[in-house]
Protein backbone atom coordinates (compact mmCIF):
# COMPACT_ATOMS: atom_id res chain seq x y z
CA UNK A 1 0.00 0.00 0.00
CA UNK A 2 1.46 3.35 -0.98
CA UNK A 3 2.10 6.04 1.56
CA UNK A 4 2.17 9.71 0.71
CA UNK A 5 2.11 13.04 2.47
CA UNK A 6 0.83 15.57 0.02
CA UNK A 7 1.45 19.26 0.65
CA UNK A 8 -0.99 21.58 -1.17
CA UNK A 9 0.24 25.15 -1.01
CA UNK A 10 -1.82 28.28 -1.56
CA UNK A 11 0.50 31.18 -0.91
CA UNK A 12 1.45 31.25 2.79
CA UNK A 13 -1.10 28.61 3.67
CA UNK A 14 -0.59 24.89 3.13
CA UNK A 15 -2.67 21.79 3.65
CA UNK A 16 -0.95 18.52 4.53
CA UNK A 17 -2.81 15.42 3.39
CA UNK A 18 -1.49 12.08 4.67
CA UNK A 19 -2.59 9.27 2.41
CA UNK A 20 -2.41 5.51 3.05
CA UNK A 21 -1.14 3.69 6.13
CA UNK A 22 0.90 5.70 8.60
CA UNK A 23 1.98 2.79 10.79
CA UNK A 24 4.96 0.83 12.05
CA UNK A 25 5.10 -1.33 8.91
CA UNK A 26 5.46 1.73 6.70
CA UNK A 27 7.62 3.76 9.07
CA UNK A 28 10.53 4.16 6.61
CA UNK A 29 8.29 5.37 3.81
CA UNK A 30 6.46 7.70 6.21
CA UNK A 31 9.76 9.17 7.42
CA UNK A 32 10.80 9.92 3.83
CA UNK A 33 7.43 11.44 3.03
CA UNK A 34 7.60 13.61 6.15
CA UNK A 35 11.06 14.85 5.13
CA UNK A 36 9.88 15.67 1.61
CA UNK A 37 6.80 17.45 2.88
CA UNK A 38 8.81 19.41 5.43
CA UNK A 39 11.16 20.65 2.70
CA UNK A 40 8.25 21.77 0.51
CA UNK A 41 6.56 23.57 3.42
CA UNK A 42 9.39 25.99 4.15
CA UNK A 43 8.13 29.54 4.23
CA UNK A 44 4.51 28.64 5.07
CA UNK A 45 2.78 30.59 7.83
CA UNK A 46 -0.02 28.19 8.55
CA UNK A 47 -0.47 24.49 7.95
CA UNK A 48 -3.66 22.48 8.26
CA UNK A 49 -3.53 18.70 8.40
CA UNK A 50 -6.40 16.93 6.68
CA UNK A 51 -6.63 13.38 7.96
CA UNK A 52 -9.55 12.39 5.73
CA UNK A 53 -7.51 10.20 3.40
CA UNK A 54 -5.66 8.24 6.05
CA UNK A 55 -6.38 4.51 5.83
CA UNK A 56 -4.67 3.60 9.06
CA UNK A 57 -2.58 5.27 11.74
CA UNK A 58 -0.82 3.88 14.78
CA UNK A 59 1.51 5.30 17.41
CA UNK A 60 4.51 5.34 15.07
CA UNK A 61 2.71 7.29 12.36
CA UNK A 62 1.20 9.63 14.94
CA UNK A 63 4.63 10.35 16.48
CA UNK A 64 6.17 11.12 13.10
CA UNK A 65 3.33 13.52 12.24
CA UNK A 66 3.28 15.03 15.73
CA UNK A 67 7.00 15.77 15.63
CA UNK A 68 6.64 17.32 12.16
CA UNK A 69 3.96 19.65 13.52
CA UNK A 70 6.13 20.43 16.55
CA UNK A 71 9.03 21.42 14.29
CA UNK A 72 6.76 23.56 12.11
CA UNK A 73 5.47 25.39 15.18
CA UNK A 74 8.99 25.84 16.48
CA UNK A 75 9.78 27.60 13.17
CA UNK A 76 6.92 30.04 13.81
CA UNK A 77 4.30 28.35 11.67
CA UNK A 78 0.77 27.78 12.95
CA UNK A 79 -0.01 24.08 12.62
CA UNK A 80 -3.45 22.61 13.27
CA UNK A 81 -5.35 19.45 12.59
CA UNK A 82 -8.73 19.41 10.87
CA UNK A 83 -10.45 17.19 13.41
CA UNK A 84 -13.76 16.53 11.69
CA UNK A 85 -12.45 14.09 9.12
CA UNK A 86 -10.79 11.54 11.37
CA UNK A 87 -11.22 12.34 15.07
CA UNK A 88 -9.46 9.19 16.30
CA UNK A 89 -6.27 9.94 14.38
CA UNK A 90 -6.46 13.56 15.48
CA UNK A 91 -6.70 12.50 19.14
CA UNK A 92 -3.74 10.15 18.75
CA UNK A 93 -1.54 12.85 17.23
CA UNK A 94 -2.69 15.38 19.83
CA UNK A 95 -1.83 12.90 22.61
CA UNK A 96 1.75 12.53 21.41
CA UNK A 97 2.05 16.30 21.08
CA UNK A 98 0.73 16.93 24.62
CA UNK A 99 2.91 14.29 26.24
CA UNK A 100 6.12 15.52 24.79
CA UNK A 101 8.64 16.17 27.54
CA UNK A 102 10.86 19.15 26.98
CA UNK A 103 14.05 17.95 28.56
CA UNK A 104 17.17 20.04 28.97
CA UNK A 105 19.71 19.24 26.29
CA UNK A 106 21.69 16.22 27.40
CA UNK A 107 25.42 16.16 27.07
CA UNK A 108 26.36 14.38 23.89
CA UNK A 109 28.56 11.41 24.53
CA UNK A 110 32.08 11.66 23.29
CA UNK A 111 32.37 9.26 20.39
CA UNK A 112 35.66 10.23 18.79
CA UNK A 113 38.81 8.28 19.58
CA UNK A 114 40.62 11.10 21.36
CA UNK A 115 37.70 12.13 23.61
CA UNK A 116 37.20 8.50 24.55
CA UNK A 117 40.86 8.07 25.43
CA UNK A 118 40.60 11.29 27.41
CA UNK A 119 37.52 10.04 29.23
CA UNK A 120 39.30 6.79 30.11
CA UNK A 121 42.39 8.62 31.35
CA UNK A 122 40.28 11.02 33.40
CA UNK A 123 38.81 8.03 35.24
CA UNK A 124 42.25 6.71 36.21
CA UNK A 125 42.76 8.85 39.34
CA UNK A 126 39.35 7.80 40.68
CA UNK A 127 40.05 4.14 39.95
CA UNK A 128 43.50 4.34 41.51
CA UNK A 129 41.95 6.04 44.53
CA UNK A 130 39.37 3.23 44.82
CA UNK A 131 42.11 0.60 44.59
CA UNK A 132 44.30 2.24 47.26
CA UNK A 133 41.24 2.78 49.45
CA UNK A 134 40.39 -0.92 49.21
CA UNK A 135 43.99 -2.03 49.88
CA UNK A 136 44.03 0.30 52.88
CA UNK A 137 40.78 -1.15 54.20
CA UNK A 138 42.21 -4.65 53.81
CA UNK A 139 45.41 -3.64 55.61
CA UNK A 140 43.40 -2.23 58.53
CA UNK A 141 41.22 -5.33 58.55
CA UNK A 142 44.15 -7.67 59.34
CA UNK A 143 45.01 -6.34 62.84
CA UNK A 144 41.31 -5.89 63.62
CA UNK A 145 40.65 -9.48 62.58
CA UNK A 146 43.51 -10.61 64.81
CA UNK A 147 41.96 -8.71 67.71
CA UNK A 148 38.46 -10.11 67.09
CA UNK A 149 38.79 -13.46 65.30
CA UNK A 150 35.00 -13.91 65.38
CA UNK A 151 34.64 -11.09 62.85
CA UNK A 152 36.16 -13.33 60.15
CA UNK A 153 34.21 -16.15 58.55
CA UNK A 154 36.77 -18.86 59.38
CA UNK A 155 34.11 -21.54 58.95
CA UNK A 156 34.18 -20.97 55.22
CA UNK A 157 37.95 -21.52 55.03
CA UNK A 158 37.88 -25.32 54.51
CA UNK A 159 35.31 -24.92 51.74
CA UNK A 160 37.38 -22.16 50.11
CA UNK A 161 40.60 -24.19 50.29
CA UNK A 162 38.72 -27.10 48.74
CA UNK A 163 37.27 -24.94 45.93
CA UNK A 164 40.36 -22.86 45.20
CA UNK A 165 42.97 -25.54 45.84
CA UNK A 166 41.83 -29.13 45.62
CA UNK A 167 39.27 -28.58 42.89
CA UNK A 168 41.81 -26.66 40.81
CA UNK A 169 44.51 -29.33 41.16
CA UNK A 170 43.67 -31.27 37.96
CA UNK A 171 43.75 -28.21 35.74
CA UNK A 172 46.87 -26.59 37.26
CA UNK A 173 48.63 -29.97 37.20
CA UNK A 174 47.77 -30.54 33.55
CA UNK A 175 48.91 -27.04 32.63
CA UNK A 176 52.22 -27.41 34.46
CA UNK A 177 52.83 -30.89 33.02
CA UNK A 178 52.36 -29.56 29.49
CA UNK A 179 54.56 -26.54 30.14
CA UNK A 180 57.24 -28.99 31.35
CA UNK A 181 56.88 -30.92 28.08
CA UNK A 182 57.10 -27.67 26.09
CA UNK A 183 60.29 -26.52 27.88
CA UNK A 184 61.76 -30.00 27.37
CA UNK A 185 61.02 -29.99 23.63
CA UNK A 186 62.28 -26.44 23.30
CA UNK A 187 65.51 -27.39 25.09
CA UNK A 188 65.98 -30.47 22.91
CA UNK A 189 65.55 -28.48 19.68
CA UNK A 190 67.68 -25.48 20.70
CA UNK A 191 70.32 -26.97 23.03
CA UNK A 192 70.57 -30.02 20.76
CA UNK A 193 72.01 -27.79 18.05
CA UNK A 194 75.03 -27.27 20.29
CA UNK A 195 75.15 -30.88 21.47
CA UNK A 196 74.06 -29.76 24.93
CA UNK A 197 71.10 -32.13 25.43
CA UNK A 198 72.46 -32.96 28.88
CA UNK A 199 71.48 -29.44 29.96
CA UNK A 200 67.76 -29.94 29.21
CA UNK A 201 67.02 -31.04 32.84
CA UNK A 202 68.75 -27.87 34.07
CA UNK A 203 66.68 -25.75 31.70
CA UNK A 204 63.42 -27.34 32.85
CA UNK A 205 64.32 -26.87 36.52
CA UNK A 206 65.49 -23.27 36.20
CA UNK A 207 62.75 -22.07 33.82
CA UNK A 208 59.90 -23.80 35.58
CA UNK A 209 60.87 -23.53 39.23
CA UNK A 210 61.91 -19.89 39.04
CA UNK A 211 59.43 -18.41 36.56
CA UNK A 212 56.91 -20.50 34.75
CA UNK A 213 55.64 -22.67 37.60
CA UNK A 214 54.32 -19.82 39.75
CA UNK A 215 53.17 -17.87 36.71
CA UNK A 216 51.27 -20.69 35.01
CA UNK A 217 49.65 -21.74 38.27
CA UNK A 218 48.70 -18.18 39.17
CA UNK A 219 47.23 -17.51 35.72
CA UNK A 220 45.11 -20.66 35.89
CA UNK A 221 43.96 -19.79 39.43
CA UNK A 222 43.27 -16.17 38.40
CA UNK A 223 41.09 -17.34 35.53
CA UNK A 224 39.33 -20.01 37.51
CA UNK A 225 39.02 -18.84 41.10
CA UNK A 226 39.33 -15.13 40.30
CA UNK A 227 36.18 -15.34 38.20
CA UNK A 228 34.46 -17.49 40.82
CA UNK A 229 35.24 -15.19 43.74
CA UNK A 230 34.45 -11.99 41.86
CA UNK A 231 31.10 -13.24 40.60
CA UNK A 232 30.17 -14.69 44.01
CA UNK A 233 30.81 -11.42 45.82
CA UNK A 234 29.31 -9.33 43.00
CA UNK A 235 26.12 -11.39 43.19
CA UNK A 236 26.03 -10.95 46.96
CA UNK A 237 26.41 -7.20 46.40
CA UNK A 238 23.57 -6.87 43.91
CA UNK A 239 21.26 -9.09 45.98
CA UNK A 240 21.80 -6.83 49.04
CA UNK A 241 23.62 -9.57 50.99
CA UNK A 242 26.63 -7.29 51.52
CA UNK A 243 24.32 -4.52 52.79
CA UNK A 244 22.71 -7.07 55.10
CA UNK A 245 26.14 -8.05 56.43
CA UNK A 246 26.99 -4.41 57.09
CA UNK A 247 23.62 -3.77 58.69
CA UNK A 248 24.34 -6.63 61.10
CA UNK A 249 27.62 -5.02 62.09
CA UNK A 250 29.95 -7.17 59.98
CA UNK A 251 32.80 -5.67 58.01
CA UNK A 252 32.55 -7.30 54.55
CA UNK A 253 36.33 -7.00 54.13
CA UNK A 254 37.00 -8.98 57.28
CA UNK A 255 34.11 -11.40 56.83
CA UNK A 256 34.52 -12.16 53.12
CA UNK A 257 37.81 -10.86 51.75
CA UNK A 258 40.26 -12.06 54.41
CA UNK A 259 39.28 -15.76 54.35
CA UNK A 260 39.38 -15.76 50.55
CA UNK A 261 42.81 -14.13 50.40
CA UNK A 262 44.03 -16.46 53.13
CA UNK A 263 42.74 -19.52 51.27
CA UNK A 264 44.48 -18.34 48.10
CA UNK A 265 47.74 -17.65 49.96
CA UNK A 266 47.70 -21.22 51.31
CA UNK A 267 46.71 -23.00 48.13
CA UNK A 268 48.65 -21.23 45.37
CA UNK A 269 52.11 -22.21 46.77
CA UNK A 270 50.89 -25.79 47.21
CA UNK A 271 49.50 -25.93 43.68
CA UNK A 272 52.74 -24.45 42.38
CA UNK A 273 54.82 -27.01 44.24
CA UNK A 274 52.77 -29.88 42.82
CA UNK A 275 52.99 -28.22 39.40
CA UNK A 276 56.80 -28.02 39.68
CA UNK A 277 56.99 -31.77 40.26
CA UNK A 278 54.70 -32.47 37.31
CA UNK A 279 56.72 -30.15 35.04
CA UNK A 280 59.78 -32.27 35.83
CA UNK A 281 57.77 -35.33 34.79
CA UNK A 282 56.79 -33.56 31.56
CA UNK A 283 60.41 -32.61 30.82
CA UNK A 284 61.51 -36.16 31.56
CA UNK A 285 58.89 -37.67 29.25
CA UNK A 286 59.77 -35.29 26.41
CA UNK A 287 63.51 -35.90 26.73
CA UNK A 288 63.33 -39.65 27.11
CA UNK A 289 60.98 -40.02 24.15
CA UNK A 290 62.83 -37.62 21.83
CA UNK A 291 66.47 -38.30 22.73
CA UNK A 292 68.77 -41.13 23.82
CA UNK A 293 68.96 -39.89 27.42
CA UNK A 294 67.87 -42.51 29.94
CA UNK A 295 65.32 -41.71 32.66
CA UNK A 296 67.97 -42.42 35.27
CA UNK A 297 70.39 -39.94 33.74
CA UNK A 298 67.63 -37.34 33.45
CA UNK A 299 66.61 -37.75 37.08
CA UNK A 300 70.23 -37.59 38.19
CA UNK A 301 70.79 -34.37 36.27
CA UNK A 302 67.54 -32.90 37.60
CA UNK A 303 68.50 -33.71 41.19
CA UNK A 304 71.80 -31.91 40.66
CA UNK A 305 70.08 -28.92 39.10
CA UNK A 306 67.52 -28.36 41.87
CA UNK A 307 68.82 -25.91 44.44
CA UNK A 308 67.11 -24.20 47.34
CA UNK A 309 67.58 -20.90 45.54
CA UNK A 310 65.67 -22.04 42.43
CA UNK A 311 62.85 -23.53 44.47
CA UNK A 312 62.48 -20.65 46.90
CA UNK A 313 62.73 -17.83 44.35
CA UNK A 314 59.71 -19.41 42.70
CA UNK A 315 57.67 -20.31 45.77
CA UNK A 316 58.27 -16.97 47.52
CA UNK A 317 56.32 -15.18 44.79
CA UNK A 318 53.28 -17.39 45.17
CA UNK A 319 51.64 -15.75 48.21
CA UNK A 320 52.01 -12.34 46.56
CA UNK A 321 50.46 -13.58 43.34
CA UNK A 322 47.69 -15.19 45.40
CA UNK A 323 47.03 -11.97 47.33
CA UNK A 324 46.87 -9.97 44.12
CA UNK A 325 44.30 -12.38 42.68
CA UNK A 326 42.25 -12.35 45.89
CA UNK A 327 42.30 -8.60 46.39
CA UNK A 328 41.44 -7.87 42.77
CA UNK A 329 38.65 -10.45 42.57
CA UNK A 330 37.07 -9.47 45.90
CA UNK A 331 37.60 -5.75 45.30
CA UNK A 332 35.91 -5.88 41.92
CA UNK A 333 33.09 -7.92 43.43
CA UNK A 334 32.50 -5.35 46.17
CA UNK A 335 32.56 -2.47 43.66
CA UNK A 336 29.65 -3.97 41.73
CA UNK A 337 26.48 -1.97 41.51
CA UNK A 338 23.49 -2.60 39.29
CA UNK A 339 22.17 -5.89 38.00
CA UNK A 340 23.23 -9.07 36.26
CA UNK A 341 25.15 -7.20 33.56
CA UNK A 342 27.28 -5.49 36.21
CA UNK A 343 28.17 -8.89 37.70
CA UNK A 344 29.41 -10.07 34.30
CA UNK A 345 31.35 -6.87 33.64
CA UNK A 346 33.03 -6.89 37.06
CA UNK A 347 33.94 -10.58 36.70
CA UNK A 348 35.55 -9.93 33.32
CA UNK A 349 37.48 -6.96 34.69
CA UNK A 350 38.58 -8.99 37.71
CA UNK A 351 39.97 -11.83 35.56
CA UNK A 352 41.76 -9.51 33.15
CA UNK A 353 43.28 -7.43 35.96
CA UNK A 354 44.21 -10.52 38.00
CA UNK A 355 46.02 -12.20 35.09
CA UNK A 356 47.76 -9.00 34.12
CA UNK A 357 48.83 -8.26 37.68
CA UNK A 358 50.28 -11.78 38.15
CA UNK A 359 52.46 -11.22 35.09
CA UNK A 360 53.55 -7.79 36.34
CA UNK A 361 54.33 -9.08 39.84
CA UNK A 362 56.31 -11.99 38.40
CA UNK A 363 58.30 -9.60 36.25
CA UNK A 364 59.04 -7.34 39.23
CA UNK A 365 60.29 -10.30 41.28
CA UNK A 366 62.46 -11.52 38.40
CA UNK A 367 63.96 -8.07 37.99
CA UNK A 368 64.61 -7.86 41.73
CA UNK A 369 66.29 -11.30 41.83
CA UNK A 370 68.35 -10.45 38.73
CA UNK A 371 69.54 -7.20 40.29
CA UNK A 372 70.34 -8.97 43.57
CA UNK A 373 72.17 -11.73 41.70
CA UNK A 374 70.00 -14.46 43.28
Amino acid at each position, binding site marked *: MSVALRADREGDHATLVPIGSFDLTHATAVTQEVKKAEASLSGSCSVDVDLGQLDRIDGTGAVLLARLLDRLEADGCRASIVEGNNPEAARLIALYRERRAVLPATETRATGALPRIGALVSQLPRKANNAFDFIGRCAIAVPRAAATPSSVDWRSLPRLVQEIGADALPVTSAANLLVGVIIGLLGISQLGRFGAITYVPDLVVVAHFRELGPLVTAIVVAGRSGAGLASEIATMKVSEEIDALRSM*GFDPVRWLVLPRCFALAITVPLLTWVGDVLALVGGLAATVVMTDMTPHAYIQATANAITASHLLTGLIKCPFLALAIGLIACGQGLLTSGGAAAVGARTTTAVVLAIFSTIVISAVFTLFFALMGI
Partner: protein
Amino acid sequence: MPAPKPHITVEDLRIGWGTRVLLEHTTFQVERGTIFAILGGSGCGKSSLLRHLIGLVQPQAGRIDIDGVGDPSRYEGAPPFGVLFQSGALFSSMTLAENLSLPLTTWTRIRGATARELVHAKLDLVGLGAFAEHLPGEISGGMKKRAGIARALMLEADLLFFDEPSAGLDPISAVELDQLILTLSRDLGITVVIVTHELPSIFLVADNCIVLDKVAKGIVARGDPRKLRDESEIPFVHAFFTRSSYGVSTNPGG
Protein backbone atom coordinates in the same frame (compact mmCIF):
# COMPACT_ATOMS: atom_id res chain seq x y z
CA MET B 1 7.22 14.34 83.46
CA PRO B 2 9.48 15.19 80.51
CA ALA B 3 8.39 13.98 77.07
CA PRO B 4 10.05 10.67 76.12
CA LYS B 5 13.05 11.07 73.88
CA PRO B 6 12.37 10.20 70.24
CA HIS B 7 13.91 6.95 69.01
CA ILE B 8 15.28 8.51 65.83
CA THR B 9 16.05 12.17 65.27
CA VAL B 10 16.91 13.45 61.80
CA GLU B 11 17.93 17.07 61.48
CA ASP B 12 18.40 19.09 58.32
CA LEU B 13 19.58 16.09 56.34
CA ARG B 14 20.83 16.41 52.79
CA ILE B 15 21.43 13.29 50.77
CA GLY B 16 22.41 12.76 47.18
CA TRP B 17 25.05 11.43 44.85
CA GLY B 18 27.77 13.82 43.77
CA THR B 19 26.15 17.03 42.63
CA ARG B 20 22.69 15.45 42.40
CA VAL B 21 20.65 16.22 45.51
CA LEU B 22 17.85 13.77 46.32
CA LEU B 23 16.59 15.25 49.58
CA GLU B 24 17.49 18.38 51.48
CA HIS B 25 16.40 20.18 54.67
CA THR B 26 14.83 16.92 55.82
CA THR B 27 13.95 16.94 59.51
CA PHE B 28 11.75 14.43 61.33
CA GLN B 29 11.53 12.32 64.47
CA VAL B 30 10.34 8.79 65.08
CA GLU B 31 8.71 8.15 68.44
CA ARG B 32 9.59 5.03 70.38
CA GLY B 33 7.29 2.04 69.88
CA THR B 34 5.47 3.44 66.87
CA ILE B 35 5.26 2.31 63.26
CA PHE B 36 6.62 5.07 61.08
CA ALA B 37 6.25 5.01 57.30
CA ILE B 38 8.46 6.80 54.78
CA LEU B 39 6.28 7.31 51.73
CA GLY B 40 6.66 8.75 48.29
CA GLY B 41 6.66 7.93 44.62
CA SER B 42 9.33 5.94 42.82
CA GLY B 43 12.72 7.65 42.69
CA CYS B 44 11.98 10.20 45.44
CA GLY B 45 14.80 8.92 47.68
CA LYS B 46 12.90 6.69 50.12
CA SER B 47 15.31 3.77 49.91
CA SER B 48 18.31 6.11 49.88
CA LEU B 49 17.02 7.74 53.07
CA LEU B 50 16.75 4.27 54.61
CA ARG B 51 20.34 3.43 53.63
CA HIS B 52 21.43 6.61 55.40
CA LEU B 53 19.32 5.83 58.48
CA ILE B 54 21.00 2.44 58.87
CA GLY B 55 24.43 3.95 58.37
CA LEU B 56 25.39 2.34 55.06
CA VAL B 57 25.92 5.76 53.50
CA GLN B 58 27.04 9.04 55.04
CA PRO B 59 24.79 12.05 54.44
CA GLN B 60 26.12 15.08 52.59
CA ALA B 61 24.98 17.28 55.47
CA GLY B 62 22.80 17.15 58.54
CA ARG B 63 22.54 14.80 61.49
CA ILE B 64 21.00 11.40 62.18
CA ASP B 65 20.77 10.30 65.79
CA ILE B 66 19.44 6.94 66.86
CA ASP B 67 18.86 6.75 70.58
CA GLY B 68 21.50 4.53 72.07
CA VAL B 69 23.63 4.54 68.91
CA GLY B 70 24.14 8.14 67.96
CA ASP B 71 25.32 8.41 64.38
CA PRO B 72 24.38 5.03 62.85
CA SER B 73 27.40 5.02 60.55
CA ARG B 74 29.76 5.06 63.50
CA TYR B 75 28.63 2.20 65.68
CA GLU B 76 31.08 -0.59 66.38
CA GLY B 77 30.00 -4.14 66.97
CA ALA B 78 26.46 -5.48 67.08
CA PRO B 79 23.98 -2.94 65.73
CA PRO B 80 21.03 -2.21 68.01
CA PHE B 81 18.64 -2.33 65.07
CA GLY B 82 17.59 -4.88 62.50
CA VAL B 83 16.98 -4.40 58.79
CA LEU B 84 14.76 -6.29 56.36
CA PHE B 85 15.99 -5.64 52.84
CA GLN B 86 13.66 -5.69 49.87
CA SER B 87 14.75 -9.14 48.72
CA GLY B 88 15.19 -10.51 52.23
CA ALA B 89 18.98 -10.58 51.57
CA LEU B 90 19.41 -13.99 53.17
CA PHE B 91 22.81 -15.58 52.58
CA SER B 92 22.09 -18.01 49.80
CA SER B 93 24.72 -20.58 50.80
CA MET B 94 23.32 -20.98 54.33
CA THR B 95 20.14 -22.62 55.60
CA LEU B 96 17.56 -20.45 57.34
CA ALA B 97 18.78 -21.69 60.73
CA GLU B 98 22.39 -20.82 59.83
CA ASN B 99 21.31 -17.41 58.55
CA LEU B 100 19.59 -16.71 61.87
CA SER B 101 22.36 -18.05 64.07
CA LEU B 102 25.04 -15.98 62.30
CA PRO B 103 24.44 -12.70 64.23
CA LEU B 104 23.92 -14.68 67.41
CA THR B 105 27.17 -16.66 67.29
CA THR B 106 29.14 -13.64 66.10
CA TRP B 107 27.99 -11.07 68.62
CA THR B 108 27.11 -13.20 71.64
CA ARG B 109 28.59 -16.15 73.49
CA ILE B 110 25.43 -18.17 72.99
CA ARG B 111 26.20 -21.51 71.35
CA GLY B 112 24.85 -25.04 71.00
CA ALA B 113 21.41 -26.02 72.21
CA THR B 114 20.50 -22.55 73.49
CA ALA B 115 21.39 -20.96 70.16
CA ARG B 116 19.33 -23.60 68.33
CA GLU B 117 16.41 -23.00 70.64
CA LEU B 118 16.53 -19.24 70.10
CA VAL B 119 16.81 -19.64 66.33
CA HIS B 120 13.82 -21.97 66.26
CA ALA B 121 11.81 -19.67 68.51
CA LYS B 122 12.36 -16.76 66.11
CA LEU B 123 11.52 -18.93 63.12
CA ASP B 124 8.34 -20.08 64.91
CA LEU B 125 7.52 -16.44 65.64
CA VAL B 126 7.41 -15.69 61.92
CA GLY B 127 5.73 -19.01 61.10
CA LEU B 128 8.70 -20.74 59.52
CA GLY B 129 9.48 -23.31 62.21
CA ALA B 130 9.26 -26.15 59.70
CA PHE B 131 11.74 -24.61 57.28
CA ALA B 132 14.85 -24.24 59.47
CA GLU B 133 16.96 -26.52 57.31
CA HIS B 134 15.81 -25.11 53.98
CA LEU B 135 18.08 -22.96 51.82
CA PRO B 136 16.74 -19.51 50.81
CA GLY B 137 16.47 -20.71 47.22
CA GLU B 138 13.97 -23.38 48.29
CA ILE B 139 11.35 -21.07 49.83
CA SER B 140 8.97 -18.44 48.43
CA GLY B 141 9.51 -14.68 48.32
CA GLY B 142 7.15 -14.03 51.24
CA MET B 143 8.88 -16.68 53.33
CA LYS B 144 12.28 -15.14 52.56
CA LYS B 145 11.02 -11.82 53.88
CA ARG B 146 9.67 -13.43 57.05
CA ALA B 147 12.99 -15.23 57.53
CA GLY B 148 14.71 -11.85 57.04
CA ILE B 149 12.53 -10.41 59.82
CA ALA B 150 13.42 -13.32 62.08
CA ARG B 151 17.12 -12.71 61.41
CA ALA B 152 16.68 -8.99 62.10
CA LEU B 153 15.13 -9.92 65.46
CA MET B 154 17.93 -12.27 66.57
CA LEU B 155 19.81 -9.66 68.59
CA GLU B 156 16.60 -8.41 70.26
CA ALA B 157 16.80 -5.06 68.52
CA ASP B 158 14.13 -2.57 69.58
CA LEU B 159 14.23 -0.85 66.19
CA LEU B 160 13.51 -2.49 62.84
CA PHE B 161 13.82 -1.02 59.36
CA PHE B 162 11.81 -2.46 56.48
CA ASP B 163 12.55 -1.67 52.84
CA GLU B 164 9.34 -2.16 50.82
CA PRO B 165 8.26 -5.27 52.75
CA SER B 166 5.23 -6.06 50.60
CA ALA B 167 6.89 -5.48 47.23
CA GLY B 168 6.41 -8.48 44.96
CA LEU B 169 4.06 -10.31 47.34
CA ASP B 170 0.54 -11.53 46.65
CA PRO B 171 -2.19 -9.66 48.60
CA ILE B 172 -2.62 -12.41 51.19
CA SER B 173 1.13 -12.73 51.91
CA ALA B 174 1.35 -8.94 52.05
CA VAL B 175 -1.44 -8.75 54.65
CA GLU B 176 0.17 -11.56 56.66
CA LEU B 177 3.43 -9.65 56.66
CA ASP B 178 1.63 -6.48 57.75
CA GLN B 179 -0.02 -8.40 60.59
CA LEU B 180 3.40 -9.68 61.62
CA ILE B 181 4.77 -6.13 61.66
CA LEU B 182 1.80 -5.02 63.79
CA THR B 183 2.42 -7.91 66.19
CA LEU B 184 6.08 -7.01 66.51
CA SER B 185 5.24 -3.41 67.24
CA ARG B 186 2.26 -3.93 69.55
CA ASP B 187 3.45 -7.01 71.43
CA LEU B 188 7.20 -6.55 71.49
CA GLY B 189 7.17 -2.74 71.65
CA ILE B 190 9.56 -2.50 68.71
CA THR B 191 9.88 0.77 66.83
CA VAL B 192 9.34 0.08 63.12
CA VAL B 193 10.38 2.26 60.20
CA ILE B 194 8.89 1.16 56.87
CA VAL B 195 9.74 2.43 53.44
CA THR B 196 6.83 1.68 51.15
CA HIS B 197 4.30 2.92 48.66
CA GLU B 198 1.72 0.21 49.24
CA LEU B 199 -1.40 2.08 50.35
CA PRO B 200 -3.23 -0.85 52.02
CA SER B 201 -0.12 -1.56 54.12
CA ILE B 202 0.26 2.07 55.08
CA PHE B 203 -3.34 2.44 56.28
CA LEU B 204 -3.21 -0.88 58.13
CA VAL B 205 0.01 -0.47 60.05
CA ALA B 206 1.44 3.04 60.07
CA ASP B 207 0.89 5.32 63.08
CA ASN B 208 2.75 8.18 61.51
CA CYS B 209 4.35 8.97 58.22
CA ILE B 210 6.28 11.42 56.12
CA VAL B 211 5.61 11.88 52.41
CA LEU B 212 8.62 12.63 50.23
CA ASP B 213 8.43 14.26 46.84
CA LYS B 214 11.22 14.27 44.29
CA VAL B 215 10.27 17.66 42.85
CA ALA B 216 10.25 19.31 46.29
CA LYS B 217 13.36 17.24 47.25
CA GLY B 218 12.05 16.81 50.74
CA ILE B 219 9.07 16.17 53.00
CA VAL B 220 5.78 17.55 51.68
CA ALA B 221 3.51 16.19 54.40
CA ARG B 222 3.71 14.43 57.74
CA GLY B 223 1.30 12.94 60.24
CA ASP B 224 -1.26 10.13 60.50
CA PRO B 225 -1.65 8.68 56.99
CA ARG B 226 -5.43 8.26 57.39
CA LYS B 227 -5.80 11.91 58.31
CA LEU B 228 -3.56 12.95 55.44
CA ARG B 229 -5.73 10.92 53.06
CA ASP B 230 -8.92 12.56 54.27
CA GLU B 231 -7.76 16.07 55.01
CA SER B 232 -4.61 16.96 53.09
CA GLU B 233 -5.05 19.75 50.59
CA ILE B 234 -1.62 19.36 49.02
CA PRO B 235 -2.34 18.07 45.48
CA PHE B 236 0.54 15.56 45.41
CA VAL B 237 -0.33 14.13 48.82
CA HIS B 238 -4.02 13.93 47.99
CA ALA B 239 -3.22 12.22 44.69
CA PHE B 240 -0.82 9.80 46.41
CA PHE B 241 -3.30 8.67 49.04
CA THR B 242 -6.32 8.48 46.77
CA ARG B 243 -4.44 6.91 43.84
CA SER B 244 -5.68 9.66 41.58
CA SER B 245 -3.89 11.29 38.71
CA TYR B 246 -1.56 14.12 39.54
CA GLY B 247 -0.81 15.87 36.25
CA VAL B 248 0.36 13.72 33.39
CA SER B 249 3.04 16.05 32.13
CA THR B 250 6.41 14.41 31.85
CA ASN B 251 8.04 17.78 31.61
CA PRO B 252 10.13 18.14 34.76
CA GLY B 253 10.06 21.89 34.39
CA GLY B 254 6.30 22.03 34.25
